[in-house]
């Protein structure tokens, strides 16, 4: 079963060296992250493969990834294991409802580390980046707001709604119970 993984490979303090240099498996798509003032934050990379490519990789909705995607702004929430709520936590459900009710992003996907926990979320906007300040997932942790280069995220229609459940452990809003 092919899966899609996402990992933040942070910049080494004070260095602009390529964080991908030490990664054994080349990503399927990647983009640099920069802060609002232009500082290099690292590389966000995605892999389409069955196995986890790097230790901290989490699953993302495959539909979010497009190697030909345009640059934009990203709100990236990655929760450590000891602070990850259950996916069925009311705070997570509330965030998903807010996503469905709010202005549509270019990309939104929850992030999955195991079959029961919420590991984070990624939201990408290009036309209205200020809306990322109201990222519904910020109620679960402090997201990283950054410019993201082209070549990683696509543009998807808004999730169909009203379903807020995961399908067989997939990252929401990916749907379907099939293989």
């Amino acid at each position, binding site marked *: 079963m092919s899966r899609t993984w996402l990992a933040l490979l942070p910049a080494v303090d004070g260095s602009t060296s390529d964080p991908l240099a030490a990664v054994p498996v080349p990503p399927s798509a990647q983009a640099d992250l920069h802060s609002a003032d232009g500082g290099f934050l690292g590389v966000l990379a995605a892999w389409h493969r069955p196995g986890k490519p790097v230790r901290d990789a989490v699953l993302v909705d495959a539909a979010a990834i497009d190697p030909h995607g345009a640059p934009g702004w990203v709100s990236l929430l990655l929760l450590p294991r000891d602070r990850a709520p259950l996916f069925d936590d009311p705070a997570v459900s509330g965030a998903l409802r807010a996503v469905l009710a709010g202005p*549509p992003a270019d990309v939104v996907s929850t992030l999955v580390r195991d079959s029961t926990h919420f590991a984070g979320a990624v939201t990408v906007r290009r036309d209205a980046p200020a809306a990322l300040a109201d990222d519904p997932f910020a109620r679960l942790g402090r997201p990283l707001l950054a410019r993201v280069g082209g070549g990683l995220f696509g543009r998807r*229609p808004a999730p*169909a*709604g*009203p*379903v807020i*459940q995961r399908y067989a452990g997939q990252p929401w809003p990916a*749907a379907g*119970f099939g293989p």
Partner: protein
Amino acid sequence: MVEGLEAGAVLADITLPDHNGVPRSLTELAQGDPLVVVFYRGWWCPKEQAWFRSLAGWQPEVEVAYSRIVAISVDPPGELAAFRAGLDARWTFLSDADRQWLHRLELLETTDTVHHPYTPTVLVLHPDLRIHSAYNGYWFWGRPTLEDLRQDLRAVTRVLRPDWQVPR
């Protein structure tokens, strides 16, 4: 019920702009789940306001039951978005402002010569758009009750999910 919209028939894969103006098809919105399609007059109709408040109140069940709702009217996307937001509805609304599908489906409500809207109609569909049940809502009591919809979605889900009987 209009000929071609009875149980057993297959609904066309209607593609229309959603409440954000983005073209969406019914199969895309169903995503493999049972689907309730609601054709309605428009935001201005008191009967629709009552009906949609009822649907919005039912939404917490649908959102955890792997089922979908799509609402279709002749209102333009901006009006759909405002109506949807006012209801706190979190499903997709589609705009047939050009009345393209209204005429193809022969659902024009001919007695309303002001708005030329859809005749209120509710279809419960399998994911392949096969019609399980159809309701003519021209008279308000012709619409399905929430209990009707629960029964219909139970029947469709029972057929759809191979693990309806708990795996042992």
